[in-house]
């Protein structure tokens, strides 16, 4: 495949993938990060993403799907532009994560894995994100927010709404 003419990815990401497969002793080692970076750009692992990743690495699409379904961050349908991931594992739970999670549900009007109108926000209850000492914590896409309270939830959402142009 010529990356410039055939790729569904932007030239920048396509070039990154060209380099990524050459980096390892074994080409296949690029698979997991490539799927994640592909999802970052396209939003989810569409059929076209699976097909191009399989081609780039030299695997069948089935082999790629077999691996992709294992990892909890990888998804097969679009999330919101801002994917709100609320940790409710023990350290967060003890400091009020469920109250924070309920507040997000109330404010966004969606539940676990729901997406709001126009695809602005999605919500997920997730397992430990490694911010136990700053609990309760969430991630919005890759950004951490620590020491949350239910009262702080509307402000966080308002900041992201502003970033998305007021929707």
């Amino acid at each position, binding site marked *: 495949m010529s990356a410039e003419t055939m790729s569904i990815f932007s030239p920048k990401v396509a070039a990154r993938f060209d380099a990524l497969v050459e980096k390892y002793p074994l080409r*296949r*080692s690029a698979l997991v990060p490539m799927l994640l970076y592909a999802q970052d750009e396209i939003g989810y692992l569409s059929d076209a993403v699976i097909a191009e990743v399989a081609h780039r690495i030299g695997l069948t699409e089935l082999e790629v799907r077999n691996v992709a379904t294992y990892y909890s961050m990888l998804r097969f349908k679009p999330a919101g532009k801002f994917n709100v991931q609320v940790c409710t594992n*023990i350290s967060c739970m003890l400091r009020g994560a469920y109250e924070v999670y309920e507040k997000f549900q109330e404010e966004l009007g969606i539940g676990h894995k729901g997406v709001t109108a126009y695809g602005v926000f999605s919500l997920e*209850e997730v397992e*430990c994100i490694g911010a136990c000492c700053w609990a309760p914590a969430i991630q919005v896409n890759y*950004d951490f927010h620590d020491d949350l309270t239910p009262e702080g939830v509307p402000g966080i959402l308002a900041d992201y709404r502003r970033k998305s142009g007021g929707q």
Partner: protein
Amino acid sequence: MPRLVSHPDEVKVVSKRFGQGAANIDKYIELGGYEAARKCLAQGPDWIIEEMKASNLRGRGGAGFPTGMKWSFVPKQSARPKYVLINGDESEPGTCKDHLIFLHDPHAMIEGTIIAGLAIGSKMGFIYLRGEYRYLLEIMEKAVADAYAKGFLGKNIFGSDIEFQIITQSGAGAYEVGEESALMESLEGKRGVPRIKPPFPAVVGLYGGPTVINNAETIATVPHVITMGGTAFAGIGSARNGGTRLFSISGHVERPGVYELPMGYNLKKMIYEVAGGVRGGRKLKAVVPGGSSTPVLLPEEIETLGMDFDQVGKAGSMLGSGGVVVIDDQTCIVEFALRTISFYQHESCGWCIPCREGTDWLKKSLTRFHAGFGTAKDIDNIRYLAENMMGRTFCPLGDAAAMPTLGFVKKFRKEFEDHLDGKPCPFAKHTEMAVV
């Protein structure tokens, strides 16, 4: 930005550069960085391994295996390339120490990896970070690029004729990948299911080559061991437990945070003095001493308990990943047990039946129990299920799910009984707990 804490009892070794801008390579060098790697280059592999053995440094991932001994198991001659693999998949609930090392001291991670490479005669190291740690991966990638630019990595490290390359890698969400053989599978582009042992990674590991796998905290400690000398490092800790440990103290304490304390530091003091005591002046109910997979301890069990691998083991639990989760008297243990097992059920890779089925049944039983539909027989069934998962799986995830469950049932049986006969949970806030 995660908050940094400090306490006068801390002995800052691994965390001494935190908050000082050491992610910048010039700052790291100014603070004495990369001197340990140069020293190791001059002294050679046998000397490095002797220093590591003398240090009594034990693996910070949870198992507590002596690092120097682990390195010495790698054969000197090997037809296949040897590898160093750093486990930064930090995902044991209650643990967030590697988060701070990646953020504040990424070059310590690189320097430790170089030293491990020199010790075992490897030319390539991998630093694997969990997928959620994207901003930390970017910090790591920048640090690696800077180290290449200075000639500390590459074909001729520090101007020598020795080659060492480092590749950073992102995961994509999987607790199981923190297990060393599943980690290698993931790095080879596969589902993160464990491999059966033997052969051990030191003989047949990544890409079939001899591989040393170290936890991120362990590897960030290595340059300090070299700088201060193995014996001096050992002198900081307790018997057979060298040095300090980054304890992630979370839950119901006044001042949660990552504190660096000598191995063997008393757990009660850690909670009441270092972390400021139980939040809101409440009473202590229980402590999970080393991440969510370690059996719970009661207040009377922590009075004189020193936090090192051997003492916590003797007390019937494990030091694990050093994640101390403090639980106050307003907490329902059944709910806590349910949230713990829900995690392991979600994360079980499904490869071994006792783990896949056991975690699922435990979650179902505890969900029903907490909702007030349990029967007296359930308590023994929960125990029976957990006991039959122990030691019957390829990797320790089955044990990690069973051990805490057994602890809760044994030590808080009365609280389980209080949920019987349709009685509502005495602490209930979330009877219809959302489940991941």
